[in-house]
C-alpha cells in the first residue's frame, strides 16, 4: 500500500490531494478569481496561495482521515508554471516532508495531468491532447518519454480564451473559459477568424490579437454579438486542436484520444473531438472538472508512479522551474 500526498499551485488554483493505490482519498482545491477584465499576476497569486495553503493541507488530511505518519511520500509541482506561486507551494511541501521524515518528489505538472487522465479513464495508450491556460501540447508515449508531437508555437489555447474573456469583460468565476462556453451556446452567427495550423503545431497569438482588436468594433457596430464571437472563437481554435490531434494519431497509428487540462472540460471541444474519433473508429477519453482542472491529486498520482518506480528528489534538487518540458522526464514507470 502506497499513500502519496500531492501539492499543486502552478497557476491560480491551489490544490492538495491524497492518493492511495489509485484511489483518490481527498482532493480539496481553491481558485484565485480576479475581477472581470483582469488576469492573475504572479505575486497576487502567490499571496492567495500563501493565505490558504495550510488550511487546504489540513482539509486534505482530514477528508482522507489520515495522519502525517500514514503518508509515504510528499509530491509537489516542480514546474512548469508561474514562479512565485510554485515557490509558495514547494516551501510547504519541503517543510512537511522534512517534519514528517518522508521522501520528496518533484513532479512535472503536464505529466500530472497525463497520469491522472490515464488513471481515471483507464485509456491504454492514447494520443494525449493537453490544453490549458498555460499549455497546449499533443503528446504520445514512446520508449520511456512522453514525446511532444505538436504544440503551440506561441500562447496556449486557454490563454487565448482567457484574454478574450478579459476583452469582453465577462466574469472569471468559476473560470473565464467556462463562461465563454456558456455564451457560445447562445451564439447564432459564425464570424470568420484567422485559422493557424503549421504542420504539427498551432499558433494562437494571431487570432488573439485579431479578436482583441476587432471585438469592440464588431459588437458596437451591431455586426455580431459577443455570444457570436465566443461561438466563432471556440469553433476556430477547437478545429485547430482537432486537426493537430488527428495528425498525431495518423503518425502513431493510434486508436485513442485523451483530453487533459482545464480546457479539456469544454464540452464543445469534447464533442468536436468525438466526431473526428468516430470518423476514424477511435475512442475518446476525457475527465470531469475535478481532474481536468489543476488539482493536487494529479500530482500525487504522478508522484505515486514515480515513487513506486524508485524515483526520489533530493532537497537540493527540489528547486522549482518555470520552464519544464514534458519530454525532459524519464518515464521509468512504463515500458
Amino acid at each position, binding site marked *: 500500500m502506497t499513500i502519496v500526498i500531492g501539492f499543486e499551485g502552478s497557476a491560480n488554483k491551489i490544490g492538495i490531494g491524497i492518493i492511495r493505490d489509485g484511489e483518490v482519498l481527498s482532493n480539496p482545491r481553491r481558485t484565485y478569481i480576479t475581477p472581470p477584465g483582469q488576469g492573475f499576476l504572479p505575486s497576487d497569486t502567490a499571496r492567495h496561495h*500563501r493565505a490558504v495553503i*495550510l488550511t487546504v493541507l489540513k482539509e486534505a488530511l482530514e477528508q482522507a482521515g489520515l495522519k502525517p505518519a500514514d503518508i509515504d511520500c510528499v509530491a509537489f509541482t516542480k514546474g512548469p508554471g508561474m*514562479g512565485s506561486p510554485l*515557490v509558495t507551494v514547494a*516551501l510547504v511541501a519541503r*517543510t*512537511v516532508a*522534512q*517534519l*514528517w521524515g518522508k521522501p520528496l518528489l518533484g513532479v512535472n505538472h503536464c505529466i500530472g495531468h497525463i497520469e491522472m487522465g490515464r488513471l481515471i479513464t483507464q485509456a491504454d495508450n492514447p494520443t494525449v491532447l493537453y490544453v490549458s491556460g498555460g499549455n497546449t501540447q499533443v503528446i504520445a508515449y514512446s520508449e520511456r518519454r512522453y514525446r511532444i508531437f505538436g504544440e503551440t508555437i506561441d500562447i496556449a489555447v486557454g490563454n487565448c480564451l482567457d484574454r478574450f474573456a478579459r476583452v469582453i469583460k465577462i466574469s472569471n468565476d468559476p473560470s473565464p473559459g467556462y463562461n465563454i462556453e456558456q455564451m457560445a451556446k447562445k451564439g447564432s452567427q459564425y464570424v470568420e477568424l484567422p485559422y493557424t495550423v503549421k504542420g504539427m503545431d498551432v499558433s494562437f497569438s494571431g487570432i488573439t490579437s485579431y479578436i482583441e482588436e476587432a471585438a469592440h468594433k464588431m459588437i458596437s457596430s451591431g455586426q455580431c454579438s459577443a455570444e457570436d464571437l465566443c461561438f466563432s472563437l471556440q469553433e476556430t481554435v477547437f478545429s485547430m486542436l482537432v486537426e493537430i490531434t488527428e495528425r498525431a494519431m495518423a503518425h502513431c497509428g493510434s486508436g485513442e484520444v485523451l483530453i487533459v487540462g482545464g480546457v479539456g472540460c469544454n464540452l464543445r471541444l469534447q464533442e468536436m473531438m468525438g466526431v473526428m474519433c468516430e470518423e476514424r473508429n477511435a475512442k475518446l477519453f476525457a475527465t470531469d472538472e475535478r481532474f481536468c482542472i489543476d488539482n493536487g491529486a494529479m500530482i500525487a498520482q504522478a508522484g505515486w508512479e514515480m515513487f513506486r518506480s524508485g524515483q526520489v528528489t533530493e532537497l537540493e534538487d527540489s528547486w522549482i522551474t518555470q520552464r519544464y518540458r514534458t519530454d525532459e522526464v524519464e518515464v521509468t514507470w512504463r515500458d
Partner: protein
Amino acid sequence: MAATDREMNPESEKLQFRLDVPFPSPRDASIALGSLSPDREPRKGGIDKQLMVTDRTLTVRWSADEARILRVSVDSFLDNLSLVLETMQMFAPPASQ
C-alpha cells in the same frame, strides 16, 4: 535579529544585509534551511544570497548592486520564511518541539 551593514567596500561597492533567525532547536533551523535554500533567486544578476545554519541559528547574507533589488529579495525571503515557520508550527510532529 537583523543587522544592516552599508559597507562601501572599495572593491565591490555592493550593499550588504545580514539576517540572523534563532530557532528553538538545531533541527528546526536545518529544516528551515532545507526548505528555503533550493530555489534560485528569480533575478539573474545584481543579487547574491547565501544561507547557512550554525547551531540553532539560520543566517542569511545578501549582497546587491542596488537598494531596490536588495529590498525585493529580502521582502520576498521574509514572506517565505514566515510561511515555513507557520507550517512548522502547525504540522510539527506531536512528540517533539
